[in-house]
């Protein structure tokens, strides 16, 4: 799973603001700044983990990268094509290479379609294969995700949560993509089933060389599966680094607080570590704090943090942090 340095996806200054309309004339009175000028790269063959608390904009990043939302500003380069300006057939062709696995395996499968129809739909839409071959391909895909191929004519309600998530994975694999966005793929599943799906995703990556953008709120899971990790807070990436670097030497106060809040299933280790408990709640993205987004809850905030937004800068090779005082923790 070692990452070579070929960039598959490059996101530059991506912004996604959702307008808020009010009043009789539905005038725009503001915007929810769900994603506010973020930049990152994903290398071919790696897994980039994207973590953050609910409402921080991680799913919006996923949807904007796939052009399911039209970004307010910024560039999304995939295999050196700028997706933001692609149209029609060209965009359609690119979509085959980028797929998504969704969070809720109960809501993301149409209850009126059989597994064969669900997994076969992308094949039909993109005219990848026709007629009898579809059934063959679907059975093969089910085999790949370790479901019994004879389940193809069943309906989603006949499956458990973990099995449904496997169907979702099979659908994402149907068009042989190179890039898969996993949007909280295990958070709706039971603990003992989560490990099954994580192992499946890892096996598939090894087998087919997929590149993953893995979105989750669970830092333990992200540590397990990712090569590099980006931490988001209120629409902004606060820190991005190699996995071990980030977990051993977090340089942003938010990352530090987040890591110290994760429960460890071991009372001895849990009692030994220092805890940083953040006060208060995440502010609203419709009215974010000036300057640094995190300053209202930051234990080391200074007046300068309210005045200007800290640059997302490379402090040590490959370790990016958006904080004025990151050197303090080196």
């Amino acid at each position, binding site marked *: 799973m070692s990452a070579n340095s070929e960039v598959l996806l490059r996101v530059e200054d991506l912004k996604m603001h959702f307008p808020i309309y009010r009043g009789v004339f539905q005038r725009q009175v503001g915007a929810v700044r769900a994603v506010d000028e973020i930049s990152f790269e994903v290398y071919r063959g790696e897994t980039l983990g994207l973590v953050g*608390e*609910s409402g921080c904009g991680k799913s919006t990043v996923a949807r904007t990268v796939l052009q399911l939302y039209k970004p307010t500003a910024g560039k999304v380069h995939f295999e050196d094509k700028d997706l933001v300006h692609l149209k029609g057939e060209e965009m359609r062709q690119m979509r085959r290479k980028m797929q998504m696995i969704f969070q809720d395996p109960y809501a993301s499968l149409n209850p009126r379609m059989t597994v064969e129809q669900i997994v076969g739909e992308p094949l039909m839409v993109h005219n990848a294969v026709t007629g009898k071959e579809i059934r063959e391909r679907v059975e093969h895909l089910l085999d790949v995700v370790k479901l019994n191929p004879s389940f193809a004519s069943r309906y989603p309600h006949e499956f*458990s949560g*973990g099995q449904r998530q496997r169907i979702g994975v099979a659908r994402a694999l149907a068009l042989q993509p190179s890039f898969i966005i996993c949007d909280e793929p295990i958070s709706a599943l*039971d*603990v*003992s*089933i*989560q*490990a*099954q799906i*994580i*192992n499946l995703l*890892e096996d598939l990556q090894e087998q087919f060389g997929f590149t993953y953008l893995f979105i989750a*709120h*669970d*830092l*333990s*899971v992200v*540590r*397990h*599966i990712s090569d590099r990790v980006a931490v988001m807070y209120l629409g902004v990436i606060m820190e991005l680094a190699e996995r071990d670097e980030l*977990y051993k030497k977090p340089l942003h106060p938010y990352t530090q*607080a*987040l*890591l*110290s*809040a*994760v*429960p*460890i*299933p*071991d*009372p*001895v*280790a*849990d*009692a030994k*570590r220092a*805890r940083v*408990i*953040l006060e208060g*709640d*995440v502010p609203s993205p419709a009215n974010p704090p000036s300057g640094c987004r995190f300053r209202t809850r930051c234990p080391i905030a200074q007046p300068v943090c309210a005045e200007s937004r800290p640059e997302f800068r490379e402090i040590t090779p490959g370790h990016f942090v958006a904080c004025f005082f990151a050197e303090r923790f080196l």
Partner: protein
Amino acid sequence: MPDTILDVQGLETVFKTPDGTVHAVNGVSFGLKEGETLGVVGESGCGKSVTMLSVLGLIPNPPGRVVAGTAKFAGHDLLKMTNEEIRHVRGSQISIVFQDPMTSLNPVLTIGKQLTEPLALHLGMTKKQAETRAAELLGMVGIPNAMERLKDYPHQYSGGMRQRVMIAMALSCSPQILIADEPTTALDVTIQAQITDLVKRLRQELGMAVIWITHDLGVVAGLAHRVVVMYGGFIIEEASVGELYANPSHPYTIGLLGSLPRVDAKQHDRLFSIEGLPPVLYQKPHACPFAPRCKWALERCWKENPALESITPEHRVACWVDTKTGRPRS
């Protein structure tokens, strides 16, 4: 040695469904000592919530029915009480905090109205007294500007603050036992850390006993004194928190701990996954409910259900196999 304040013996609860009778709780026995925190861990459907709801007489009948067992609290059997009698216990001596703070508050009543209700009902306070006490309670759970915020409606509170309100409500009559049913599952990790810290502090200040129901072995590690692990409506392991994590002895507990990725992981190991699915119990099991998923299963496991037996003074396990050696327990 602190006294046992809640003593549950042989509790059995069933639900009648169109598909047959589901045996949700199958003879559960446990004790709760004064001032201790008991963690109840298990996956969805293992019977952990139903056990507590049965004790409090909150199982809707029909379809549910408590068919056997006793639950001694202060010399009285909660299961034999009339609705009228148990209503006096519930909310004043034993109170419960539910999982979802979004749905457990009434959206059309102010926080103040909802907080003063139990005070007037159980303690017979006047409106003025109740309001003062309610503001005190809000202050105690860390909500600033409490007197003003009593006039707000639930939608004006964030998720973490709503859960604080639920806790304030549960504590309003100074209960001896607080039952928390997955109180942090719907919350973000930094908020979860706030809430667990709050409950730890309040438990010490008020000297109550806490039962913390969760599926997260991580949360319990930092919080509980003693842990019971449930599977298929049975308690399959019970130990002090240090002993359970250092020395898990039931195959299910071992599997569950092995399937958790850890944020403090030393190296990247493949996750251990428990194959198969948790059971749905349409019959009262006469064999070990975990046998179909157990890699240690012996012939005996398919025929007889092991009882919970002590392996050390503070550790009880329901398993025929000594998982240290893989041989039958003598």
